[in-house]
């Protein structure tokens, strides 16, 4: 029976959240305008209204999760994003697999942030919460799911399956509930996908806070005071957003098989660009606090950050990217709404800023080359140009849409080789940044003139040249471009380490945020350079096959075909594919798939044999996501097994075939990264013509290419899975088949009952053979075997060595630590002022 209550409840909460956000905006506007006598009561009402909104927004999330958690497949969202086989933590991923769920997540974070802002501010609450409530109104409208005539506002996650699809089954039985959902995209079945989206959306959501403070400042004509409360939030936002981006990169590295952590895909770019602008904004804001310049720049950058987040949302969710991106959301028909959302805040922000522009204090004096402001400004400019360089080509699909909407024709496409195109700019910008952070930090902490500059820089410079020389020689960096990168990155690491040491000696750790973040940047740069520039595909096809056409011989084949048990040379390793495995609940290692037989129930199998101490023949076992196959690949060096890797693949018909996740061997100085690019079709083998062999016990013969020993036959008293009756005769033949270093025993059975013959063949899917004991010829003491073949099991694999990738991960962690230190420092400053009653 369909449960319509929970969906209706969720939908009701959506409407309540929408209405209450508008009420809150109005109430806070009245509070903002009210005189001292009425302020208190308006404030009370506004807060009450916002708390109503908070509760209803939270209940939207609760309702949706309830639908997923209790497998209510009468709902479209649960049906299309989850399934019964999912463990709870992947149900959480299902929650935000769809656009609506991601919006709900965003709405929820804004609620959390809003409550935090209300409770940490005295002075800014009114105007900041007006902006907050308006943003909430727009976001909630995206999941309203109200249809008025042809106008559709929002897409509701609480829609029933029967209303979402045209399936004929619902005409026969409107109360039909599917047995199971279509499942969660296997690529999202990863622990990083449980935590990456919430982090990223918290990052997205938190960009609103500095923007809201700025709008408040412009509304209240306090053109510079907004910086102090906004700064810790801006750094928080950059920290979280940065963490979200890195988690996404790491997820891509361990889950997707495009061979890396960053692909310059439009969706990645859409997040990277606001982050760059936000980091630039933080720098100009800090400069303003120190020396009252760069206020106008800060205002522009903070507005840009927020608008770029909205623009990113538009790109990813409107369907405008179409063919350009491999993983943008599908079009829900919200593009108009998203566009209005973005333009609304753009117009309001530009209007308020323009109105205030001539009143905003700016310093008239020219910044000297020996001033810190100058260097920070150049740095912020570089970040801005980096952002511009990425967002421009990423917007090509938008440009095409725009031209076509005016009736023109535009067939521009994104650059064919995105990685090469973006890298050639971003690399040099990053080098400039590294140099600026090295020099700029010295300017920041002490007064400079020509002489002191020389004296200060000469030591770090010499040290970093020496260290770079070491790196270049030891790691064999002989490309001039990479040599420059090593120099610049080492320089910023050394220079900032000097500063860090000084800070720790003279003052407190609290001031160390900047130097830490810059050290992290330098390390990340070195890690990126090595892992990308020196990544080495070792799975070059050495099969020596020549092709029928000359042009094909020139192409490098970057995958190897591994037949099961057959050792294959791959650069320094000899690799052997050893077969498929499954993950079994309670067993700490992967279990060979051939030992398991599915029972037909979800994630359940019967053990066909004993396996170590974990289970015995006939046990019923629970599998972890039974569609997942883990391919055991053994790596040998000098005949010795070094390690095994288990890249995963899932054959998922509803998602369309093979979905692969890599597995890597992680060393201190490199990763060996492998993934399966193609695999055997295990579903319906295409048996070839049968071959007949006759053999006497003890004889040796060849089945296909396999050396086979016929050891003899036994009369059986009982047979597995088959009830013998009085007078039956059952004979089992024992064949030993050799495949490289593996010996397999296959035992086909032959049963005689009342002059009738039954044959139980054996199938070995790894060798791709089916053997039937077809007849027994007692006169000749011969046994007749019928053999059918299809192809042996195989995988096609790619393997890449990525040197020093750990330097990148460590660098990003240090960078985020630096941000975190800075958040505390800036929040302390704000708190001191607030508690003095000044702000």
């Amino acid at each position, binding site marked *: 029976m369909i449960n319509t209550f929970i969906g209706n409840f969720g939908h009701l909460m959506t409407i309540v959240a929408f209405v209450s956000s508008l009420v809150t905006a109005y109430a806070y506007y009245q509070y903002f305008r009210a005189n001292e006598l009425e302020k208190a009561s308006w404030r009370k009402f506004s807060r009450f209204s916002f708390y109503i909104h908070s509760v209803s927004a939270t209940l939207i999330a609760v309702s949706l999760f309830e639908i997923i958690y209790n497998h209510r497949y009468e709902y479209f969202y649960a049906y299309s994003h989850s399934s019964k086989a999912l463990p709870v933590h992947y149900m959480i991923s299902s929650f935000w697999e769809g656009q609506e769920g991601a919006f709900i997540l965003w709405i929820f974070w804004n609620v959390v942030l809003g409550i935090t802002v209300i409770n940490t501010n005295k002075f800014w609450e009114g105007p900041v919460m007006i902006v907050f409530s308006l943003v909430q109104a727009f976001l909630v409208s995206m999941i309203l799911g109200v249809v008025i005539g042809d106008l559709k506002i929002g897409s509701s996650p609480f829609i029933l*399956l029967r209303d979402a*699809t045209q*399936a004929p089954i619902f005409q026969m039985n409107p109360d039909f509930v599917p047995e*199971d959902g279509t499942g969660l995209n296997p690529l999202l079945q990863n622990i990083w996908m449980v935590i990456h989206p919430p982090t990223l959306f918290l990052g997205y959501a938190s960009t609103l806070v500095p923007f809201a403070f700025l709008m408040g400042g412009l509304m209240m004509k306090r053109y510079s005071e907004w910086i102090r409360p906004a700064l810790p939030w801006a750094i928080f936002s950059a920290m979280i957003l940065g963490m979200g981006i890195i988690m996404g990169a790491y997820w891509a590295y361990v889950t997707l098989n495009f061979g890396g952590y960053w692909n310059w895909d439009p969706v990645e770019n859409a997040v990277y660009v606001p982050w760059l602008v936000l980091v630039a904004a933080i720098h100009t804001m800090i400069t303003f606090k120190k020396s009252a310049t760069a206020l106008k720049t800060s205002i522009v950058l903070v507005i840009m950050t927020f608008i770029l987040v909205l623009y990113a949302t538009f790109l990813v969710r409107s369907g405008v990217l179409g063919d350009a991106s491999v993983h943008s959301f599908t079009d829900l028909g919200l593009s108009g709404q998203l566009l209005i959302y973005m333009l609304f805040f753009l117009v309001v922000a530009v209007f308020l800023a323009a109105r205030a522009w001539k009143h905003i204090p700016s310093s008239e004096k020219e910044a000297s080359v020996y001033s810190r402001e100058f260097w920070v400004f150049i740095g912020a400019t570089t970040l801005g140009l980096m952002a511009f360089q990425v967002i421009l080509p990423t917007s090509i699909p938008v440009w095409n849409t725009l031209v076509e909407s005016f009736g023109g024709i535009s067939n521009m*496409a994104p650059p064919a080789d995105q990685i090469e*195109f973006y890298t050639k700019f971003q690399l040099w910008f990053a080098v400039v940044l590294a140099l600026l952070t090295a020099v700029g930090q010295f300017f920041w902490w002490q007064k400079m003139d020509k002489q002191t500059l020389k004296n200060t820089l000469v030591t770090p410079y010499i040290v970093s040249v020496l260290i770079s020389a070491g790196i270049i020689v030891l790691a064999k960096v002989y490309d001039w471009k990479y040599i420059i990168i090593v120099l610049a990155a080492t320089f910023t690491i050394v220079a900032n380490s000097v500063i860090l040491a000084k800070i720790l000696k003279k003052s407190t750790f609290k001031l160390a945020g900047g130097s830490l973040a810059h050290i992290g940047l330098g390390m990340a740069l070195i890690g990126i350079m090595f892992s990308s520039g020196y990544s080495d595909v070792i799975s070059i096809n050495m099969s020596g096959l020549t092709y029928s056409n000359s042009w094909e011989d020139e192409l490098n084949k970057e995958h190897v075909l591994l037949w099961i048990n057959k050792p294959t040379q791959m650069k320094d390793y000899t690799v052997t594919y050893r077969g498929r495995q499954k993950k079994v609940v309670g067993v700490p290692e992967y279990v060979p798939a051939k030992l398991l037989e599915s029972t037909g129930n979800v994630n359940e199998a019967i053990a066909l044999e004993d396996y170590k101490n974990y289970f015995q023949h006939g046990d019923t076992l629970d599998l972890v996501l039974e569609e997942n196959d883990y391919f055991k690949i053994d790596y040998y060096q000098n005949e010795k097994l070094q390690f095994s890797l288990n890249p995963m693949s899932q054959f998922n018909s*509803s998602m*369309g075939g093979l979905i692969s996740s890599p597995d890597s061997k992680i060393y201190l100085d490199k990763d060996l990264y492998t993934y399966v690019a193609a695999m055997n079709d295990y579903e319906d083998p295409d048996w070839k013509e049968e071959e007949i062999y006759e053999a006497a016990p003890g004889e040796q013969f060849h089945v296909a290419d396999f050396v086979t020993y016929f050891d003899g036959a036994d009369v059986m008293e009982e047979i597995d899975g088959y009830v013998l009756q009085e007078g039956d005769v059952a004979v089992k033949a024992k064949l030993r088949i050799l495949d490289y270093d593996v010996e397999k025993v296959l035992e086909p059975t032959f049963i005689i009952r009342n002059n009738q013959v039954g044959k139980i063949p054996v199938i070995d899917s790894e060798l791709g053979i089916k053997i039937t004991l077809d007849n027994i010829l007692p006169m000749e003491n011969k046994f007749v075997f019928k053999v059918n073949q299809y192809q042996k099991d195989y995988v*096609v694999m790619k393997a890449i060595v990525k040197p020093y990738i750990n330097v990148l991960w460590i660098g990003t962690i240090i960078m985020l630590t630096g941000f975190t230190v800075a958040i505390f420092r800036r929040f302390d400053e704000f708190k001191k002022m607030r508690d003095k009653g000044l702000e």
Partner: protein
Amino acid sequence: MKKGHIIGIGIIAVAIVIIMTSIGDASSYESFSTALEMKQEGDDQPIHVVGQLKKNQAGEVTGLNVRDDKTSFTFVLVDNDGTEQEVFYNEPVPADFTRSESVVVIGQYKTEEIFIADKILMKCPSKYQETDVQAAGM
């Protein structure tokens, strides 16, 4: 000439370089016939061609030819003008290749007979448009 002006001019210069290279390096969507013309004129820029896999009456993909070592394959793509073209891709067959609604190939003609794809983008039937509910457990 103030320093601010010099910096301003510098920024504008870099921005112009960025815009010019973005336009210069941008690829374009072509049909196979225009792509072939480009090749004949000696233009080896990689371009995008949007098309669909060739299918027979029964709706099965035809012309898919996987090499023996399974690490590359050729297929027949029909572009929006209806031109059929054999395309070579130096990678194993992507997972949901045969189910794709439309395929974008990025590459160029190698000879006049064969188009080499450096990259393939697939647009797959979205789960949001699925209209057949599997009547499981009926």
